[in-house]
């Protein structure tokens, strides 16, 4: 059953946030496309996949991924110059709410993929014609690849998502500098899509005792020697998307697959979290909406519920659900809009980014251009662009709004699913199983992407206390292991002492988006 209020055009529902008519139409089309995918492929399979993965957590439905790829569920965040749709956290949020109203576990497959892609958007244009192009090629070939993002460790969950805690935390993973790149060692835990991803963005410190200062993002090919999946977890909910423990045993990652600059990982993580928490708010909102829709359908159509809609108690519960869902949707859209048009808005519209987008891929893919785009000077230029177009204060505020939307949405998801289940009771028939699943699914939203408690600390810092968190990488960074030759140096046979060519023009990476 569709709820009339939820059928309203996005532009009507968010008149303040979506003043741009073109943007509203584009989001409307994306929502309609996602809804088609959800109705045709997700909703009918949700319970069966939950049951199968409950018995065997390693079971994975690739057919569903292929169907999702056909509906554009894997490319909406990939920059337009790379061949994607150039979406932003708003797009991701709209997709997540629609999918989660059908099945949060299946939605998480696509959400975790988007999270894996996110650091690459900060890493500049060097990835456009690398892994991002490969993702799109595989999709076109009918065998889509997935991505994942690996942050959490067995001894560090919350610690790795907060710069202050990171300074005092116990990080056991280690990326050791070797000629031409790094060797990654350690364990990452609870990694969504970890066992099925082809590429993983991995956050590891180059000096574990100085994790906050040396955290670095690496792009890891899961076919690399030394990488393994040590187990897939038995989860309470959101089971369609596997959560894996990953082992890194001296896995080599070359310099050109460092995402951003060495040591910028902590700041990158904060920007990624600011971008990914509105979609988590949307996931939670979608779960609440899914429960609300199912409850309304049961109350309206099931003979066992006859007369209940006339009860004032039931009417008040429904009104409260409508209220909570509406407010949590406004919160995530507000946060996503703030990020999209506020904190990171000028990055996307910067002339250098737009200009780079007009450079034909055939030119970008020339070896010399690719080498330059992957160079440290280009990475420095990307950071300089961030400093020129946004500020730590703006990003801190955005992070706080994102955290607010995430925590609020997660609590609403728990309340609404719990109340819906209580209303129908144990003997309601098939709808009970669906509501129980959504309730189990909802709990994870209070935990992942930082616990709700940590998220509320971010709200305090950014909104109540007006703090500024270190969200931007330093403008200038001395390389930690300057004496160890880089990959480019090895290729040039210079051991890092070759004179640098002057930078001609301002060609820098983009934080996603289209031009």
């Amino acid at each position, binding site marked *: 059953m569709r709820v009339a209020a939820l059928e309203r055009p996005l532009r009507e529902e968010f008149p303040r946030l979506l003043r741009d008519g073109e943007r509203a139409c584009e989001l409307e089309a994306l929502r309609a496309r996602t809804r088609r995918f959800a109705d045709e492929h997700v909703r009918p399979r949700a319970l069966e996949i939950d*049951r199968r993965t409950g018995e065997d957590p390693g079971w994975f439905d690739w057919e569903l991924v292929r169907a999702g790829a056909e509906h554009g569920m894997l490319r909406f965040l990939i920059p337009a110059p790379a061949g994607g749709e150039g979406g932003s956290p708003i797009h991701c949020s709209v997709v997540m709410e629609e999918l989660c109203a059908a099945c949060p576990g299946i939605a998480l497959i696509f959400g975790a993929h988007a999270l894996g892609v996110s650091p690459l958007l900060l890493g500049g244009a060097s990835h456009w014609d690398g892994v991002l192009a490969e993702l799109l090629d595989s999709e076109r070939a009918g065998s889509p690849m997935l991505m994942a993002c690996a942050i*959490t460790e067995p*001894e*560090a*969950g*919350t*610690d790795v998502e*907060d710069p*202050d*805690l990171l300074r*005092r*935390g*116990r990080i056991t993973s280690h990326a050791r500098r070797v000629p031409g790149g790094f060797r990654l060692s350690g364990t990452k*835990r*609870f990694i969504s899509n970890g066992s099925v991803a082809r590429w993983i963005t991995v956050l590891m410190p180059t000096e574990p005792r100085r994790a906050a200062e040396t955290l670095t993002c690496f792009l890891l090919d899961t076919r690399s020697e030394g990488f393994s999946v040590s187990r897939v*977890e*038995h*989860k*309470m*909910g959101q089971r369609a998307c596997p*959560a894996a423990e990953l082992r890194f045993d001296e896995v080599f990652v070359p310099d050109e697959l460092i995402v951003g600059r060495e040591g910028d990982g902590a700041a990158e993580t904060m920007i990624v979290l600011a971008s990914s928490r509105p979609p988590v708010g949307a996931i939670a909102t979608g779960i609440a909406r899914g429960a609300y829709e199912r409850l309304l359908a049961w109350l309206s159509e099931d003979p*066992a519920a006859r007369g209940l809609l006339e009860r004032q*108690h039931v009417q008040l*519960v429904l009104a409260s659900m409508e209220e909570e869902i509406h407010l949590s949707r406004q919160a995530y859209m507000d946060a996503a809009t703030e990020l999209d048009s506020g904190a990171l808005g000028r990055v996307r519209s910067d002339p250098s980014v737009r200009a780079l987008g007009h450079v034909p891929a055939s030119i970008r893919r020339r070896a010399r251009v690719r080498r330059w785009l992957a160079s440290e000077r280009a990475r420095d230029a990307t950071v300089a662009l961030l400093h020129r177009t946004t500020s730590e204060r703006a990003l801190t505020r955005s992070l706080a709004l994102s955290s607010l939307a995430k925590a609020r949405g997660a609590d609403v998801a*728990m309340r609404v699913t*719990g109340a819906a*289940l*209580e*209303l*129908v*009771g*144990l*003997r*309601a*028939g098939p709808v*009970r*199983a669906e509501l*129980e699943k959504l*309730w*189990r699914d909802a*709990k*994870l939203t*209070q*935990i*992942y992407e930082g*616990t*709700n*408690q*940590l998220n*509320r*600390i971010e709200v305090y810092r950014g909104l109540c206390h007006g703090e500024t968190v270190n969200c931007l990488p330093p403008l200038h960074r001395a390389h930690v292991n300057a004496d160890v030759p880089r990959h480019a140096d090895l290729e040039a046979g210079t051991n890092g002492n070759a004179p640098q060519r002057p930078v001609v023009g301002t060609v820098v990476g983009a934080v996603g988006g289209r031009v």
Partner: protein
Amino acid sequence: MTGATAVERAELLETARELARRELVPRAAALDAGEQDVLATCWRQLAEIGLDRALLAEEHGGSGLSVSDLLAAIEELAAGEGGIALCVLLANAALATLPSEHAAAIPGGARWALVPVRSGAEATVSDGRLEGSVASALGAYGTEGVVFAVQGDRPASIAVAAGTPGLELARDEAQMGLRAAPAASIGLTGIDAHADLTQSDGASAPADAGGVLALLRAGTAAIARGIARRAYGMALEYAKARRQGGVAIIEHDAVSEMLAAMAVRLSCPLPAAAGAAAALAAKVAASDAAVASTTDAVQVFGGTGYMRETGIEKLMRDAKYCQLFPEPNWVAQDELMRLACD
């Protein structure tokens, strides 16, 4: 039912506590997975200490405990495994519904279950025949017999042994919580509602529907409290051991506040479960508290708590079912207000 002396009561509780710690906690995951042989093993141990027929007078082969003694023992068992505690509650409620001589005729160690049934909506008794269907009857699957407590204008209790023609029991595979008390979808076709249990496979008895439901509600409150106790114990232990930000997580206010709230909920005594209204209030209060505490306990564990291996997420699922059994809490509150207006 004379009840035990203070010493006997203390011994009983200690025995139940020890059984829960030694036998039920290690088997909780297997019970949650629906392993029937593990349930049978646990049930045999419970029968050995007389908890399968605790309320039945000693002269009828029971343990002769009072309701409050039984509820205290159920809470101890639930602190080990909630579903098993529910099996004990349902078995005792079933036997309590029957005339003593009928209850005494049921062999010791046999697991029976009481199933509350709404007259009309779920089943009807007409011309001495019980007809209808009941969805998700907790604890009914795999039993040796079921006592249907028919509620409505003409309440009745009808005992039906497993295997009786017309009684269909299918496992409710979707059951989310209290899975050690396996739920069944029940089909009833032409069940004889007059027959004498000692003579054949069915029995009817004058029902004290209010009393039976009060027992179920008070027992569910005890189960919820046991679950909440276990969640608090596990979360406290974990919070002392787990370190984040360079300190044990219990030193973070965000965590210690959740633990304090759990302790506060446990420190509030349940209403004495004597009487229908008190049992309703106890069931609502205890199950709401258990859901809040187990949800917070999972939060204290973080991602680890969301995985099956710690067993903490199971407590959350079990607690949720306490809100829904024997009726959803909002229905229980309705009933409470109806009693207040009578």
